[in-house]
């Protein structure tokens, strides 16, 4: 995928990866950020013009102080879409925190998007099924919460760095502090900013994609989303945890492509 920097009308710089051609699709990443390899996006680029902007606090743009709450995130999301200069209404796709923000964007501006795909989105809370606190996890614990296969997952998270190597751990923590420090503005201490009371405004056709073994936001949350969005569809992906786009990329790509192509 190619990378370029755009600037929103608020003056916030934003790095965007893009590839492919076809109807526009904007993907919003989760709290972990974009990975070096994004197989789902690369696959979708065969049928869509895919854009993957980085949130403030991620990547090189040091703009995170401009974002303080959910309204800031959602408006920034639309500012980015505007700055892309698209010639058609885009599909929005969001993973985890990115799904939470995409849903919020869809509530704020229902006419601004075509279809919506939420991949194990954050944003709801069930007392009976508390979402584990990623902010209190040690690095080695994160992989266990995020992946069906924690060992393979740790490799992805650390990008080959060895957590027993202190220098590597330190680099990871510095990046993590910026990323999760920013994410904490909408996810800490409980990842719920009352989206549920605004979901009545969400009119886009919506697909939920969920890893069946998601230990962070378990599939019982998919049921809650479907109660709140009765017209939505659910694609449950086998053999995947919360990082379902990286554990089962082909299944996720296929589900999204089928839904958006329908």
């Amino acid at each position, binding site marked *: 995928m190619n990378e370029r920097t755009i600037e929103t009308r608020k003056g916030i710089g934003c790095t965007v990866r893009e590839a492919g051609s076809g109807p526009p699709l904007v993907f919003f990443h989760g709290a972990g950020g974009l990975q070096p390899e994004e197989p789902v996006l690369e696959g979708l680029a065969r049928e869509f013009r895919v854009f993957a902007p980085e949130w403030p606090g991620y990547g090189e743009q040091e703009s*995170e102080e401009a974002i*303080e709450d959910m309204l800031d995130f959602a408006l920034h999301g639309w500012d980015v879409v505007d700055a892309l200069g698209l010639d058609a209404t885009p599909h929005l796709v969001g993973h985890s925190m990115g799904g939470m923000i995409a849903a919020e964007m869809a509530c704020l501006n229902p006419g601004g998007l075509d279809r919506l795909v939420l991949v194990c989105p954050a944003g709801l809370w069930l007392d009976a099924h508390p979402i584990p606190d990623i*902010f*209190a*996890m*040690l*690095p*080695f*614990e994160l992989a266990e919460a995020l992946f069906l296969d924690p060992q393979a997952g740790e490799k992805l998270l650390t990008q080959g760095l060895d*957590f*027993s190597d*202190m220098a590597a*751990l*330190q680099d990871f*923590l*510095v990046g*993590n*502090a*910026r*990323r*999760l*420090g*920013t*994410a*904490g*503005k909408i996810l*800490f*201490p*409980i990842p719920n900013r009352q989206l549920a009371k605004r979901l009545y405004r969400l009119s886009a056709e919506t697909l939920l994609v969920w890893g069946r073994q998601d230990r962070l936001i378990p599939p019982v949350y998919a049921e809650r989303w479907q109660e709140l969005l009765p017209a939505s569809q659910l694609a449950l992906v086998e053999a995947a945890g919360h990082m379902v786009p990286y554990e089962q990329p082909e299944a996720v790509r296929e589900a999204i492509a089928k839904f958006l192509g329908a």
Partner: protein
Amino acid sequence: MKFTWFNLMPWPHLPDDFREKNRSVWVDIPQSLYDPEVGNRVYHEYMDQLEYADSLGFDGIGVNEHHQNGYGLMPSPNIIAAGLARRTSRAAICVIGNSIALYNPPIRVAEEFAMLDVISGGRLIAGFPVGTPMDTNFCYGQIPALTRDKYYEAHELIMRAWTESEPFAFDGKYNQLRHVNCWPKPIQKPHPPIYIPGGGSIETWDFCVDNDYNYSFLSFNGYVAGQALLDGFWERVAAKGVDESPYRAAFAQIICVGETDQQAEELYAEHVLYFYNRCLHVFPGFAEPPGYRTLKTIKAGKLSQLSAEAQKSFQSLTWKDLVEGGYVIAGSPDTVRERMEHMIKGLRIGHVFCLMHNGNMPDWKTRHSTKLFAEKVMPGLQDLWPDWKGDDRWWCKPYEGRVRPEDGIDAARADARLPERSGR
């Protein structure tokens, strides 16, 4: 020099296998380990000790704030301070402090501190910590990356509430108040001395120097480890061109005094080890929520505790480690006096918070150590800063005519400072 007797108020009944069975003494410590009926005696014993320190001539008596913490039983230090204000009339009451970012609205802190200052007759020293991540973020739910911003706003609100003479409107990001009107106001003018307990961030050092606040370095790692932090603070003082009064800085130190070095070890080692090896067992995931610390601090930090292996093996400190490593100052009065002098001069501090009750130390040992310190150590340390004699800019200014509870309220009435009781 000013010496403040400090009690963290640890729970003294953590089991021997506490570390093996529990991941943290703080935040998610099991409910089953607290017993309120035992707690009744514990609070009174600890408050009696603070009053005892006042009677022995300590300059101040100190309390602090922690939440959901097995070594700190004061979610509200103001409640303890209120009790002390009524039972003492001499020592400064050092509340180090109230985590001002936690209160909605923080005007509550301005009001309660004003009450304490009035009740104590102008003896309050007011601490404004940013707060630990354990207390601030994990117990009280503040967003890590916004905590410091919220702290600065709370500070501005409190200081304006204390110093402005008319009601005003406050349009903050975190607090919007149409009518700010702190009533009552503190006795001390323009406000009680402000202490900022902090770690080693440049932001905190500059904040202290710019506002003329005392910088209080509170850790349990002792004076050897504290040297680099205080050096950093004094560099900022020099860079900003203000005077280098040692009273700008305070340091907390665990101190144990026996008749001899050997007696100190015999009497106190097990209790100090209880503190280090049981009370300080904090899950590291609670210590560093992303966003709380600046990136610079992380880069300078020690991270070995975050590995999987470190969670399974507990390092057990010994008495020798603690004394030789400078975590603890312990021994005969001569030994302690000599080490204290070395510490005070090395760190360049005018205030010491003397941590003299440690872990599960019984009352009689606490009093034994406290009495020896007051009688045989403190007198030899009082004039270590002759060039700064009388510099009381960071000390409380008690009201001369204050009510002194030990004299009885009738004495104040006899002076006509209080009205006659009707019918007398």
